[in-house]
């Protein structure tokens, strides 16, 4: 607003005549074609960036002219773009807080000590805010860097680049050719106990070289490095180096090189390690090389090489795009868009110069937020699974910092803040609208709810046709697939010993009858003989039964099935051996395994069951036959296992028989619809079963899932 050209507070500063302190220097940079000025404080190593308009002021701070005069001069000089008095005061305040101004009045001890206290408080707050990223400065590496720089200097040239490219590309080719050997069971090797030990030994060395890479390149830009230390990322010590002096360098390529130096150095080391790995015999050396490759290659690219995190790649990207404070500006731009277009506030300014820039900034803001959330949850869970208490505290803390605190801040801004003055109702409408929409979508709106499981076609017991006696197969009366009636003869067995036994026993019976007649006068002897007779008759009946077993008849009407093919004629068959099956259509059912947590839902709320065959779109309505009352690890068919293309994981410890890793309930579904529709189904073939439940809001289901998964993490 034009009225604020003059400031109410101007009288307090108009007479001051500050000057820049001697340890500061000003450098001109170009960002996206526009000139900027960087004020570098050699004492603290801090760099501050200013616009050319601000430079007009800063350049005039020589200790002889008062701010009033400076403002007048600057206003005359730059005309339309003249700073308001408030802006000028803000600029001077910023410089004052950066400790680069001097010479305007007596030193105010109170103010100084107050500022120092605040600075200390800020550091403590910083630690509290991100307990997962505490920085501890250790040494000043300047002397070391100075001493070694001459030896490194030749590498920082076109020749160095050529060597780097040759070595790395050669290593990439090598890696491609040995891909199989490299990736074979990678996880086991990376996380094996021996390897963890090796890694902790190799890791610091590589990271120190990484940081030195930054230090040397910073030196190359003309800056100095005065702080190297350890940062505790999730309790894991990671070296860091303070390369802020590089920000002074006007050449963007050099600044990018400083940012990228660490990654380049590590990749180079990884490439060398690759070569050694290829040549070395299996043994300690080889596994050290492998570790070096993993740390220097993969982890570096994942962490340092990821611009979504505020590590090396972020700074390289920021330098490349010539947008300093990229992440911060991205968030600002998002805030601006929300304020300007959602809340319809006119008095906000965009921090992007073009719509394209705005687009990239906003994209970055959103993607990096999502990514950070993901990483945060991941780290919290990772820590929590190892150290339960610490992990839960950390998880709660990081959740608080990442989600709850910002929400509280937004809420505070909404309730008592001044920024939204005039648009508060709109802001509340939007906030409540979005919250309600999400809540309604999650908790009120019913969504179709179903789960799909795999099943196999199998058949009910007992339908086997068994041999009633042992004997030689003499004749088949039926063909495979023939329809038989109950009691119909299917096969004959030849068992001569059975006939002779019957004959023998019949002879014995006659003998026994005669004896009874012979001892008619002696009642005691008759009783003995009668007992003998009944024994023989029993044996005879048994033998006759067995003899009749040589005629194999169908136990029921149905279709004859010879799964293993018809047995050969003349083959000897044991009593009780299965020779084939007789099946009816009604015997078919679909058997499936149901995970434990799904069981109550299926029992309590099952609307319909639908069947689908693989590769077909038709769905068949079916019904549930039943669920086993108890859970089991037995698997009815290999079709259901992962190995057989199904969903059930096998227990890795039990390789001989089919046992599931987790407990399942057995679920049977009627197969009649499939048969009625005259679809060709074979025993043991796969069928998809869709269990349809009452439509319910998605929120409860999500909550259940999250809770179950979270709790299962801590199951021991």
């Amino acid at each position, binding site marked *: 607003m034009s009225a604020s050209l003059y400031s109410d507070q101007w009288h307090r500063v108009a007479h001051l005549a500050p000057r820049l302190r001697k340890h500061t220097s000003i450098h001109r940079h170009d960002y996206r074609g526009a000139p900027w000025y960087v004020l570098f404080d050699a004492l603290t190593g801090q760099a501050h960036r200013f616009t050319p308009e601000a430079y007009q002021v800063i350049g005039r701070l020589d200790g002889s002219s008062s701010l009033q005069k400076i403002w007048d001069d600057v206003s005359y000089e730059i*005309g339309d773009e003249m700073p308001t008095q408030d802006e000028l005061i803000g600029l001077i305040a910023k410089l004052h807080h950066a400790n680069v101004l001097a010479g305007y*009045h007596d030193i105010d001890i109170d103010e100084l000590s107050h500022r120092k206290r605040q600075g200390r408080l800020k550091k403590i707050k910083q630690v509290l805010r991100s307990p997962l990223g505490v920085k501890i400065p250790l040494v000043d590496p300047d002397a070391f860097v100075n001493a070694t720089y001459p030896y490194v200097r030749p590498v920082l040239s076109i020749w160095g680049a050529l060597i780097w490219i040759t070595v790395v590309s050669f290593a990439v080719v090598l890696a491609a050719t040995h891909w199989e050997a490299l990736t074979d069971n990678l996880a086991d090797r990376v996380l094996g106990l021996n390897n963890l030990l090796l890694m902790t030994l190799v890791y610091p060395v590589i990271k120190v070289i990484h940081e030195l890479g930054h230090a040397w390149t910073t030196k190359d830009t003309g800056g100095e490095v005065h702080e190297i230390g350890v940062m505790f990322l999730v309790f894991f010590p990671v070296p860091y180096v303070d390369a802020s002096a590089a920000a002074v360098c006007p050449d963007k390529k050099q600044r990018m090189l400083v940012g990228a130096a660490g990654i380049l150095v590590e990749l180079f080391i990884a490439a060398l390690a690759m070569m050694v790995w290829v040549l070395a015999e299996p043994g300690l050396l080889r596994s050290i090389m492998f570790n070096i490759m993993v740390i220097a290659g993969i982890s570096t690219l994942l962490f340092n090489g990821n611009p979504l995190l505020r590590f090396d790649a972020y700074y390289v990207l920021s330098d490349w795009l010539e947008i300093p404070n990229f992440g911060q500006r991205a968030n600002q731009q998002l805030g601006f868009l929300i304020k300007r277009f959602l809340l319809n506030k006119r008095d906000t300014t965009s921090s992007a110069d073009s719509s394209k820039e705005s687009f990239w900034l906003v994209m970055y803001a959103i993607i990096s937020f999502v990514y950070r959330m993901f990483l945060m949850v991941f780290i919290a869970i990772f820590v929590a699974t190892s150290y339960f208490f610490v992990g839960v505290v950390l998880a709660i803390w990081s959740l608080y910092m990442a989600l709850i605190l910002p929400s509280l801040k937004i809420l505070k801004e909404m309730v008592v803040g001044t920024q939204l003055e005039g648009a508060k109702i709109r802001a509340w409408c939007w906030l409540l609208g979005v919250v309600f929409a999400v809540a309604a979508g999650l908790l009120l709106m019913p969504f179709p709810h179903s789960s799909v499981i795999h099943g196999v076609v199998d058949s009910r017991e007992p339908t086997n046709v068994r041999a009633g006696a042992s004997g030689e197969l003499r004749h088949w009366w039926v063909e495979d697939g023939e329809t038989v009636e109950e009691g119909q003869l299917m096969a004959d067995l030849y068992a001569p010993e059975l006939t002779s036994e019957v004959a023998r026993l019949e002879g014995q019976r006659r003998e026994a009858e005669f004896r009874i007649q012979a001892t008619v006068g002696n009642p005691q002897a008759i009783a003995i003989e009668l007992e003998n007779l009944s024994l023989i008759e029993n044996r005879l009946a048994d033998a006759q039964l067995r003899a009749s077993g040589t005629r194999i008849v169908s136990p029921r009407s149905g279709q004859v099935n010879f799964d293993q093919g018809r047995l050969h004629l003349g083959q000897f068959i044991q009593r009780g051996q299965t020779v084939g099956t007789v099946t009816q259509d009604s015997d078919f059912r679909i058997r499936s395994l149901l995970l434990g947590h799904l069981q109550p839902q299926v029992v309590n709320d099952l609307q319909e069951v639908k069947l689908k065959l693989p590769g077909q779109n038709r769905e068949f309505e079916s019904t549930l036959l039943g669920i086993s009352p108890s859970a089991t690890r037995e698997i009815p068919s290999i079709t259901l296992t992962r190995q057989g293309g199904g969903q059930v994981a096998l227990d890795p410890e039990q390789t001989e028989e089919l046992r599931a890793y987790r407990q399942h309930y057995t679920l049977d579904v009627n197969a009649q619809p499939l048969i009625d529709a005259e679809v060709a189904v074979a025993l043991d073939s796969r069928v998809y079963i869709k269990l349809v439940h009452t439509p319910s809001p998605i929120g409860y289901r999500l909550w259940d899932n999250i809770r179950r998964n979270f709790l299962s993490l801590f199951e021991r």
Partner: protein
Amino acid sequence: MLFALQRYPVNGVDRPEKVVQPPSWLDQLWAWGTAHAHLPSALPLFALKMLLPFIHYYGKKLQRLSDAALNQHIQDQRQQLLKTGVNVVNVVRNFALIREVARRELQMPHRDVQLLGGMSLMRGCMTEMQTGEGKTLTATLAAATAAMAGVPVHVVTVNDYLSKRDAELMLPIYERLGLNVRFVVHDMSSAERRQAYGADITYCTSKELVFDYLRDMKRFDNVRSPLQAHAANLQRRLSTRLLLMRGLHFAIIDEADSVLLDEARTPLILSAEDDGDDGLDLSLIHASLRMTKDFKKGEHFDIEKGVLFLTVKGKEVLSNEMLSTQNITRQRHPLGKAKLEWLAHQALVAKHQIIKDRHYLVRDDKILIIDEHNGRVLPDRRWAKGLQQLLEVLEGCKRTAPNVTLAQITFQRFFRRYQHLAGMTGTAKEVKKELWQTYGRPFLPVPPHQKNRRQKGRVHSFKDNQTRWQWIAKRAFEKSEEGRPVLITTVNVNDSEELSAILAGHIPHHDVLNARQDDNEADVVMRAGNTGAVTIATSIAGRGTDIKLDDAAKALGGLHIIAAGLHDAGRIDRQIEGRCARQGDPGSIEWAISEEDAILDELQGWQQNIGGLYRRQKKAQRLREKRHAHQRARMLRADWKSSERLGFSGRLE
């Protein structure tokens, strides 16, 4: 401790004052929480009431003393206070003593409620006493006790007239107690002021106090702590003899809500005439007025919630203007775009936002600013940043030199620096939370000593102002014929004069009291209570105006007030109400509001048409109160922020 009044060194160099740090978020949260949840105020009131029998007990003993013995007792009591400081026993004994002195000197012994009020002040509470309960007398208790204990007291009144009157009225009490009492009014020299501030008790207005404080601060320049002040004194960099005040010890603020809240919205600026030119010479003023001649509200500029701003179109017109002059003169415009827009803005503010006879009036070829809060002319006050000059050109007055700011401070900031702060008012209930959050002073209502006999009449609504004035004239005539004194209050100067013109037909001999005619305020106020008198006044006749009724008027039913329109805050209306039925007298009030009242501007959109006129006006009033409260809160925050940011400047104001 029920009463605790710390004594600090009393001299200009040490200047004890509280160093107020910006509140942390915890402080703010605490203040907010305790503002909403606290013990009922009946509890501390009960505790104070328990002390009344003791005061009466001592009072009875003192009554029996001869004058000489009383003087001796006064001496002893003062010694005792100086020796042991302020504590419960001393306060009780001293209150009894002051009450006895008041009885002997003024024949007005303090009533129980006044004693309660006095103790509440000693506790640093924002004391609410109904209008007309005798706050002036109440203040003597706390002021004299503190002064006898060696703590200099500033009794802050609403205007110069009251400072003088109260100081003189209470002088016998203080003199008998051996205390030195002086007052500060606007046209005093620095020597007189220094003497006045050197007294044990000083009666003054808040504005005089603040400006004198700023003048002192100006002398201190970069010296911030007492230690530095002593050093500067030794180096002869600081001439302590020229300092006016002796630090901020104890302030008793009359009409505390008005001083601490209503007036806190405008910062007080100490300025001097600018010797060099501020880039705002006559030609530029004319140019800015010419440029904005054709500007229309809603098209080129707009006013939203009291803030004027140029629209995009307005800015375009300006830059075209600039380009055309550039083409003619073939050289760069002497003004940048920003400055040009600023100039246009100021010109528009002068033309459209500052309204004659409401914000200022013209007298003797001079622009005089009217105080929005009490309707008085503010002598020697001028608008900053060229507004004064623009108005002078617009009104054809004599042109004065522009002024530059030397120092500025808000009441919010200033009064918090007092070591001890207490306030009295008739209307604080509505703002007790804000008083607690901003100043950390608790609120304590003291019950009235007898039942109020005010009769509240009905609210009369009118379509336009003309019919309202006609009705008021008729009504006033009727009432005055009955023999009752009538007070008609209007919202601004214009209204009062319009009404006066109409009233002249019915009652030729009425009085008008407004910013333009405030020379004989005391006489008018004195006459206003006579039988059949009719007085038209702006809110000038609000706080602190004590209209004494004559006996005939009392018998006929007391003062009748016709309030024409609602003011900015319900509290001001309640103050107007408080002019009648004072101290047990009878009285009545009725309201006359119109569709044309300016307060309705506060309503936006659909609110303009919903509900009856009175309800709409009340709603508008509430909205305005809320807006002002927001404004104050924002100002306070901005204040903290800027003091943090400007830490480097070395100057406090």
